[in-house]
């Protein structure tokens, strides 16, 4: 029974073993790594990438992908600061508006994908271009500001624990429960595992996909508003890196690009590996060129492992 459980979750198990080795090795090599201040930094850095990667996990589980995620991050960051412009009373209405807009983008993505059958890669790539173009029409340069109280989102503490990690933990927990314990979660796995069989079994796969892309855009909006707080302004290009970066932790975490296998628990491990690696390279004073090489190798190795699993 235990061996069966371990086998079923072998990818997640491997991810956490790698994470433990990474933590131990970095802790031995750097006397700063395990200090309170650095751990606090790490926990704050996890959240922005964490949200989008959780969303991306949903898309990849349905054998899809969301490449518009980066432009939605930029859009929410720019609109949040651009419309709030430091005015406290506008925070809530603006947040409602940007979340609504992001979810609408996800709805459009999902509807086009499910109604036309066009591959999500193409649809979301097109959407990325549309949204990014719209952002650059709005502003070509960093813009806007947020009131001081908004700082709390990225910089605040609750009982000495950074607020961003508490928010991320809540989102990740809800996502795990959603995928593992609800009917909708089972539909997500079924749609990704074999869409045709799922459809013949009575699952409305189109609706499942639409909701999944709405979740994806919602998490991208969370990252956008977190970055708006972290930077105190909106940057029209800030989301660019998340298009690729959001996929890497999902793959490291053992979710398969073909869909139906994996989950958020593995992705969380992948996110920590990705963030700790970047932190460790800085702490160990590794030069920028080597950092690029190491990060590139991590992408190649994680994707290779995926193909090896597939064979």
């Amino acid at each position: 029974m235990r061996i069966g459980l371990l086998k079923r979750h072998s990818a997640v198990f491997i991810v956490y073993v790698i994470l433990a080795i990474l933590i131990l090795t970095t802790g031995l090599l750097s006397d700063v790594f395990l200090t309170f201040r650095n751990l606090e930094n790490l926990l704050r850095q996890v959240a922005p990438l964490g949200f989008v990667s959780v969303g991306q996990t949903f898309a990849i589980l349905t054998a899809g992908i969301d490449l518009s995620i980066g432009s939605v991050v930029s859009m929410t960051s720019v609109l949040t600061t651009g419309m709030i412009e430091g005015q406290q009373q506008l925070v809530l209405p603006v947040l409602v508006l940007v979340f609504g807009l992001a979810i609408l983008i996800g709805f459009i993505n999902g509807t086009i994908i499910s109604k036309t059958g066009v591959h999500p890669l193409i649809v979301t790539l097109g959407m990325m271009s549309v949204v990014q173009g719209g952002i650059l029409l709005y502003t070509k340069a960093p813009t806007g500001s947020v009131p001081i109280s908004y700082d709390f989102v990225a910089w605040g503490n609750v009982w000495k624990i950074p607020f961003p990690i508490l928010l991320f933990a809540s989102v990740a927990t809800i996502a795990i429960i959603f995928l593992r314990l609800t009917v909708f979660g089972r539909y997500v796995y079924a749609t990704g595992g074999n869409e045709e069989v799922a459809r013949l079994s009575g699952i409305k796969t189109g609706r499942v996909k639409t909701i999944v892309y709405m979740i994806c855009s919602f998490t991208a909006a969370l990252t956008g508003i977190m970055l708006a707080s972290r930077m105190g302004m909106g940057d029209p290009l800030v989301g660019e890196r998340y298009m690729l970066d959001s996929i890497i932790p999902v793959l490291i975490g053992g979710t398969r690009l073909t869909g139906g296998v994996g989950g958020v628990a593995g992705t969380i491990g992948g996110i920590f590996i990705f963030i700790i690696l970047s932190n460790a390279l800085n702490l160990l004073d590794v030069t920028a060129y080597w950092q690029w090489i190491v990060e590139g190798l991590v992408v190649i190795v994680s994707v290779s492992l995926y193909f090896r699993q597939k064979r």
Partner: protein
Amino acid sequence: MKKTVTIIVAAVFLLTTMVFAPMAMAKPFPRSWLWNSTALQMMDTSKFAKKGPYVVGFSNASISNSWRVFFERQVRYGYELNKDQIKRYYVTDANDKPDKQIADVEDLLAKGVDVLILSAATMAALDPVARRTMRRGIPVICVDRRVTSDESFVSFITSSNVAQGRAQMLWLAEMLGGRGNIVMLGGIAGSGPAEERRSGGEEILSAFPNVKVLDFQYANWSPAEGKRIMKALIQTHGRKINGIWGDGLQTSGAMEAMKEAGMKVPITGDHLNAFLVRAQDWGFPAMSIDFPVSMGTDSVEIALKVLRGEPVPHIYEVPRTVVCTQDTENIKTDMPWSRMAHKDWPDEAWNNTLPKNLLPY
């Protein structure tokens, strides 16, 4: 007699030393200070004073073009020169991503830096983290690119970008005799230096109503993009183009495109060796003003002054040189063009103060 000669020789030696020693010790004075209309604001840094040796952290926006590579080496050179006062030197590279740079700064703070040297990817994005760093009692020294608020840093080491844009446009307009069509090639859209240089150039244009701008394009400070965009502009405007205003690396590529099209017009740029050598070899009327990479070394010197509690200027303008193949009424060359164009250096080299072992080529 012997005594008299000895006294005369000693007097001459003393006099010579008194006259020439200050000259030998004098550093080049930044001309741009002369043009600054506000009084020099000195910062009291006594609250940051501490005993060395120090831990210095440098958070770099990127090494995405040759200017930035040389600049990063110049900061390192500052560390090499002051190894007796600096026990550890850390450098991070944000790859032009402001959110990564915020994480980089946090990592440097975790490593216990005594001073943070910051070249910000984006002025506004790095402002909150710089302000927090200052609040923790760690002085922030901005170099090349600053953060938004004055209270988020102790000193900003730079050279006026507005003045650079003005000087380049004034030379071009005067070269054209106040009449003609020009194209403008900017840096990266939205980046502080690019926008400030553009606005400086446009200020000058208001005094020359007969100089018309046919087009403005951002060429991302890339010679390759400068060439590609210039080719397209030649296709559109052809021989109507009488001059090219450019603020950086892109104009070496633009010059190539012009040469291939058989056109030769006045062009402005900065001290990228490719630009200087080609203008000389191909006979382009050209003007170049540098944004000195050596400000990287200056930033370390200023950082150490702050840690010693010595007063430093809030805005520290570094000296810069202007070279022209041809002088105009208001813009004169500081030295012959050939002295700045180094045929034995690679294309991507910049005028620098680096020792051989730190050169990136």
